[in-house]
């Protein structure tokens, strides 16, 4: 076996880690035994960093210091309209960063979205290291196909901060197709991937032949996902309440978090039930009427009605991409559904209607993306099965030209890696610098496209205007990441290019964040006292478990339920303290548990002895 490499699906709501072991793609369960790790990061009241289900579980009581859905902010500009809309719904505080980027306030500190994502990645990395019992430093991370250059760079930065060498960023739908096609790659077929995740929607059409996966066209909406479905339910619950009591629950961070949990739960239940009850007691209170409760029923029909617009947006994207791939829905060999939101019956129904077939059944919507990333990692590092992925760029790349127009240089759906060039001519005598504005998008007006950056061509040769021709070369790597270089065509000298406007982190900031993340990991590892407590705790847990059947029997035979309940409560407290690494408090709990164990053993001995 070669170098260890993991595949990570860094999702809006959940993340998954996988690897290829002995030729089989496998999901790596986290240290709590779950396959999915919530993409949630929190700062607990005691100042500890919590990640995953622990962070998620305490979100209601600590909403302002719990970061959810940070993926929606990755690589976004503070000034963008989309950003402002997205942060309206965030319970935590989002502020402007130093380079028109966003920062998240968590306690005393401010973090960039890549730093928060890095905390999730670090957790997954530690899970993988526990799985392999060896250090892991290489990863393939997925991102929505529709992510632009800044968002991809932010994802890559997050990996670096987490101490991972990101050998490739791959698109989520492509990744899912790799997982689907793994092992049956010889057959020639065309498949579509419908990927509706927590925060983004992607749709891709691929062609497979002898181990080559060629993406034919891809499209999507980077602000459409399961969370939007939740938000519709939240509005449905909050609006009548506001009318009746004059209180907007969405403005109260704690109530909003409870609404969010209830909405998500209701949505999931409505995938199998026709109607659900939503009960949120003590959601708010007023001076006059005291505590207020929220009670509502929601039917599947109602949910479908309020989210019909969202479903239609997905279907429109599908039709457009099919057109670009020049393929008719009925001609596809298979349709894969990926992302938790595709469990909604209405979506399955609409997909079936559009494609005239049932979606493929052998794809796990939560795990396929991570498995595909693991396969890509193995393909690159271990020559896995002579497979190859030919992906495309999801957006056209171009520059701003005179009159505020956008000139395309590389058009969308071009296979990557690719490059193209454009010749600039000086327009003034002795002009020594020129500014190039690089954009990504499909709009004719430059301003309507996403700004990737502004580049300065500096140190140009002084000459009459028009006498200096600069060949500017745009490269898109296999990661979908853009780089720009320039050459003076007359002299053949390379021109220096400086990025003057980019929303990303600077090299310095990344280095600092990587260092502080490493320090944090070291602090976690190097606490011998905690290690002792941990061993002791695990032994105690095992003893209790072994004793439990006898204890339940004894409880029915006169010992009573009370001591068992007390022990159970103490055990769950200790488990939480163990997970949160609260060394001192854990030691106290363990002492208490030991005393309890002794007492219970004594009681058992007496009851058997007395018989």
């Amino acid at each position: 076996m070669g170098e260890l490499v993991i595949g990570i699906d860094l999702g809006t709501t959940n993340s998954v880690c996988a690897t290829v072991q002995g030729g089989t793609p496998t999901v790596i369960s986290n240290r709590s035994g779950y396959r999915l790790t919530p993409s949630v990061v929190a700062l607990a009241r005691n100042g500890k960093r919590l990640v995953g289900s622990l962070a998620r579980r305490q979100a209601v009581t600590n909403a302002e210091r719990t970061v959810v859905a940070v993926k929606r902010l990755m690589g976004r500009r503070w000034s963008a309209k989309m950003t402002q809309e997205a942060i309206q719904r965030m319970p935590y505080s989002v502020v402007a960063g130093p380079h028109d980027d966003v920062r998240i306030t968590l306690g005393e500190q401010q973090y960039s979205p890549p730093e928060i994502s890095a905390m999730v990645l670090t957790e997954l990395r530690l899970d993988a290291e526990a799985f392999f019992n060896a250090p892991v430093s290489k990863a393939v991370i997925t991102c929505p196909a529709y992510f632009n250059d800044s968002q991809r760079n932010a994802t890559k930065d997050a990996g670096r901060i987490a101490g991972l060498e990101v050998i490739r960023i791959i698109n989520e739908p492509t990744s899912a197709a790799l997982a689907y096609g793994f092992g049956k790659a010889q057959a020639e077929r065309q498949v579509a991937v419908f990927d509706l995740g927590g925060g983004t929607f992607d749709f891709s059409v691929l062609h497979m032949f002898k181990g080559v996966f060629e993406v034919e066209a891809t499209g999507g909406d980077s602000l459409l996902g399961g969370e939007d479905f939740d938000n519709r339910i939240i509005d449905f619950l909050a609006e009548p309440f506001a009318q009746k009591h004059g209180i907007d629950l969405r403005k109260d961070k704690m109530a909003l978090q409870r609404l969010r949990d209830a909405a998500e739960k209701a949505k999931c239940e409505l995938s199998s039930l026709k109607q659900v009850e939503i009960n949120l007691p003590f959601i708010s209170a007023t001076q006059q009427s005291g505590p207020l409760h929220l009670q509502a029923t929601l039917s599947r029909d109602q949910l479908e009605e309020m989210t019909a617009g969202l479903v239609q947006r997905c279907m429109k994207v599908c039709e457009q991409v099919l057109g670009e791939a020049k393929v008719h829905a009925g001609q596809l060999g298979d349709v894969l559904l990926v992302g938790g939101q595709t469990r909604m019956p209405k979506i399955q129904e609409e997909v079936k209607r559009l494609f005239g077939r049932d979606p493929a059944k052998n794809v796990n919507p939560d795990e396929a993306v991570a498995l595909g990333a693991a396969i890509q990692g193995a393909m690159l590092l271990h020559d896995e099965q002579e497979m190859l992925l030919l992906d495309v760029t999801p957006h056209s790349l171009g520059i701003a030209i005179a009159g505020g127009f956008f000139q395309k240089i590389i058009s969308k759906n071009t296979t990557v890696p690719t490059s193209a060039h454009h010749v600039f001519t000086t327009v003034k005598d002795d002009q020594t610098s020129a500014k190039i504005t690089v954009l990504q998008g499909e709009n004719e007006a430059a301003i309507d496209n996403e700004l990737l950056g502004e580049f300065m061509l500096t140190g140009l040769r002084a000459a009459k205007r028009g006498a200096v021709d600069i060949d500017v070369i745009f490269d898109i790597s296999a990661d979908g990441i853009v780089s720009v270089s320039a050459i003076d065509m007359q002299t053949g000298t390379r021109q220096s290019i400086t990025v003057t406007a980019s929303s990303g982190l600077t090299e310095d900031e990344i280095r600092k964040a990587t260092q502080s993340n490493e320090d944090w990991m070291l602090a976690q590892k190097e606490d011998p006292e905690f290690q002792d407590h941990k061993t002791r705790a695990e032994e105690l847990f095992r003893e209790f478990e072994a004793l439990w059947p006898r204890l339940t029997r004894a409880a029915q035979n006169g010992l009573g339920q009370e001591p068992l309940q007390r022990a159970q409560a103490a055990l769950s407290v200790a488990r939480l303290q163990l997970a949160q690494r609260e060394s001192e408090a854990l030691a106290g709990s363990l002492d208490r548990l030991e005393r309890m164990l002794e007492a219970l053993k004594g009681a058992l001995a007496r009851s058997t002895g007395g018989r």
Partner: protein
Amino acid sequence: MQNELQQLEARGDRLTHYELLGVGADADGGTVRRAYLEKSKRFHPDAWYRKETGKFGPLLSKWFQRLSAAYQVLSDEEMRAGYDRDHRAELSQTDRVAVERRELSVAEEERRARERRERLLRTKGFARIGAARKLYEEALESVLNGERTQAIFALKAARELDPKRHEISAKLVELEREQAKARANSALASAKEREEKRRFPEAIAAYSAAFQNDPASFAAAVGAARCAMETGDARAATIWASRAVELNPDDGSARWLLSRLFVSAGMKARARTELAALLNKNPDHKEAKALLRTL
């Protein structure tokens, strides 16, 4: 692999798209695609990930991109036809024959398909709906094989048989739009190539073909104007330049062209208006300022 790259380098630009992909000029869409995918397996940089490629690394990447570009042209019917037309002289003897054979067989197939459609069109009563569906499905099949022209013919017949089926007319409109766009792109590409070689009359013809297929193409209008000016046809140049200005009023190059044309035609007032508009957008245009002062 290294030998193969060196051989490719040695032949350089003289290599045709067919030779590069290793297919005959009569290969159909499926064959072209399979050849491309097979070749990618060896040329794509990922196939050599973390392996010592030394000075061959950049070559590998360059030839992979050449390969994708060739595939892109040959996988589109219109662009391939344009390529065959423009590069016939460079094709090998066998390929030239193959292209002719393909063109003949396409013509023959088209004739047969036409006859069949005409037969189907004579269908009476309810059977017409079924016949329309059959044609529609055939059209979709043709699209998959990259035969857009065939698909369009089939859809036209289908529409006549069953005018109420929305999907037939929708697909037809979509394909026709695509065809016009592909034709415009192909014409534009060959126009640019000809302009670079200073074959201006041919370039004008190609630019005007591009403009006919895409009346919103600023590049076509301004290109035709440039070439017409080179040939000394001031009247045609003026017409093209005004079209270009209409399409993109903010572009300096088109207005500059038009102002100079007006000046040489003695139409000073119109030249002044154009120059003023130009300077309004680009106040630093020295030549425009100078020209305006002389008027």
